[in-house]
């Protein structure tokens, strides 16, 4: 099959939110000698760009967006390690580490934000839920993240957001990363109180916020 057709299929696998298919296509392509960077730039990333446009237009909604982001993640899981080995860097708008804080297991809002950021061209490391402050710090340092996103859905777990910021200060890297916070009980004034760099109420707001911060 010629390269163009393969890239088209890759785009489609993202547009239709098919994680198994996207991974399969990535694997086959790499095995047949196509570079991972080409797969991304001409195939998968083109797909996710289109997803972002369709969402902005109001044709795609969150169900499509999250499915597409999952397909993107699946392809990246295969391609990123190879890129790392080859010491090739792919172009991204920014690197984001995101997660739900310690003792909090709510993840959907955070996952929607992560998907939205992926769809908008960011490299996202989603640490999941119930994440210790030290794990956030370690990942930020490991990947040299530009942004750290902290989600909390309970008033009782919100204080962790403050704690993580304090730990960043203690580690001497507070100024190296922008911290954004979110979650239903989180407010602009709380974000200001704890010294976060920004707050957004939903995923759409998060994208706009990052465009301003970075």
């Amino acid at each position, binding site marked *: 099959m010629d390269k163009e057709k393969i890239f088209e299929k890759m785009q489609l696998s993202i547009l239709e939110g098919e994680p198994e298919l996207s991974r399969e296509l990535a694997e086959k392509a790499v095995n047949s000698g196509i570079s991972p960077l080409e797969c991304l730039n001409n195939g998968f990333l083109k797909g996710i760009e289109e997803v972002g446009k369709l969402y902005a237009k*109001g044709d795609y*909604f*969150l*169900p499509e967006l999250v499915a597409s982001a999952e397909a993107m993640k699946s392809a990246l899981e295969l391609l990123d390690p190879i890129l790392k080995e080859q010491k090739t860097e792919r172009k991204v708008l920014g690197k984001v580490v995101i997660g739900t804080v310690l003792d909090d*297991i709510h993840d*959907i*809002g955070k996952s*929607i934000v992560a998907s939205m950021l992926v769809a908008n061209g960011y490299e996202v490391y989603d640490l999941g839920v119930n994440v210790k402050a030290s794990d956030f710090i370690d990942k930020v340092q490991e990947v040299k993240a530009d942004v750290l996103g902290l989600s909390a859905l309970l*008033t*009782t777990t919100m*204080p962790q957001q403050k704690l993580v910021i304090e730990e960043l200060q203690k580690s001497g890297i507070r100024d190296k990363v922008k911290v954004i916070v979110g979650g*239903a*009980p989180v*407010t602009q*004034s*709380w974000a200001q109180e704890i010294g976060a760099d920004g707050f957004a109420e*939903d*995923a*759409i707001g998060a994208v706009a916020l990052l465009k301003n911060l970075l």
Partner: protein
Amino acid sequence: MLNYPPASRKITKFEKRFSFRLLSDKQLDIIHTSTLNILEKVGVKIPVPQIYEILNEAGAQVDIKNGRVKFPSTLVEESLRKAPPNFYLYARNREFDINLDGEHSYLSLDGCASTIRDLDSGQSRSSTKHDLEKAIKVADYLPQISFVWPCVAAGDCSEEIQSLIELAVMLKNTDKHIQAMTVVNKLNAEGAVELAAVVTEGKENLKKRPIISNFQCSVSPLAYDRNSLEAAMVFAESGIPTGFMSMQVGGSTAPITLVGNLVQGNVEILAGIIFLQILYPGLPTFYGSCSTVIDPRTGHVSCSGPEDFFLQMASAELARYYHLPSSIGTMAHSERNINYFSGVSNAISAFSSMLAGADMMCGAGLMASAKEFSYEQLILDAEIYEIISKTITLPNFSKEEIAEDVISKVHNKGHYLSDRHTRMFYKNLWSSKIFPRFEISGELEYSEKAKAREFVEWILKNHEIKPLSTQQINQLDEIINYYENIIKGGRA
């Protein structure tokens, strides 16, 4: 204009004297059958290892490794039969006892918001213990509020015992029944029982007349949290009515289709109820639902819209199918402000729950999908409840009201205005100090929100709660101190 009555010391419960059915028996059976399938074949996560043996002995199938408990149909039906169909929620003031007899509906506050719309500045800010105190005082006055929830969080107090501080505030500031729904772990449940026992003068009395109740929420899909279930067990041990409530969001934590949404919620709620009935057979319990759907564009939780209203009604009918009192999430519109849509939404929501016969409706006072409390919203919600109550409370079809003799007489005179019959009954007509209905020429124009606000200010200034004795207040404070020391010592 400012002619508000002192507190009537009566709660305006709503009498269900009509019959209405949204779902047919066959449709309810379909939901029940799917529920049984899932309970039996998939189960629900119940991460409380210390009682797995008891569940096993009762006939449940426990997968110890992943905490998943499956309930065969016979166990489901047997356990549900043990739950009492009717019972009381008691109050410090006997006039405020809630009779969950299946023939009355009761409106409560909603909860628990983390922000409040400040009455003076009109700005949103995080809520405090003092806010809760004031809000409960207003709820204590309003006859439409039959029982209270902590409508705002005591956000300025230690998180670890926040729910205890909230309960102490409520015990001190109202003599209505208190549903202490922010208590979600063992330590706080133990503290809550102790606090309530101060007011009932002992745990024996508390068991006989539980002046507090509780419910625990599932973690959709198909799971419960360990802390939550341990709290339920503590309450059950003390005879406190403990219900189970699901808050699934169609499209994210539940199927996008409404029937699928109902089935999943049903599985979760019943699993909780069955769990507790196995451990404490015959404990008063109830069926709670605050289900909703996602907004596909933003991911926000809907809380306002035909799907919500349908889910309210269907959940109420499901509860009745199982002969359990229902607690149905009502009102709490999605808007950040009081506007036309918020009025439309809360009115239809309240009408839906009341028409479907919800036993308990939670509740009044919150905006922004239950994230923010507003005093004005509370007043306006109480007014909606009044209007709907009067709409669907059937009049007496008595000889007097049919008024054949009056009709036969008055037609000669041409009007009824001065007739004795009119004077006897005209006061039954609805009137409101908040909704203007007709402009009276010469009077200043006032918005409903402004009138609501004036009313709240009057209540806060003039209403007197029935205080506890100094000794009781001191005992409550001592218990709070005791638990504060526990958490400081890190033993929580």
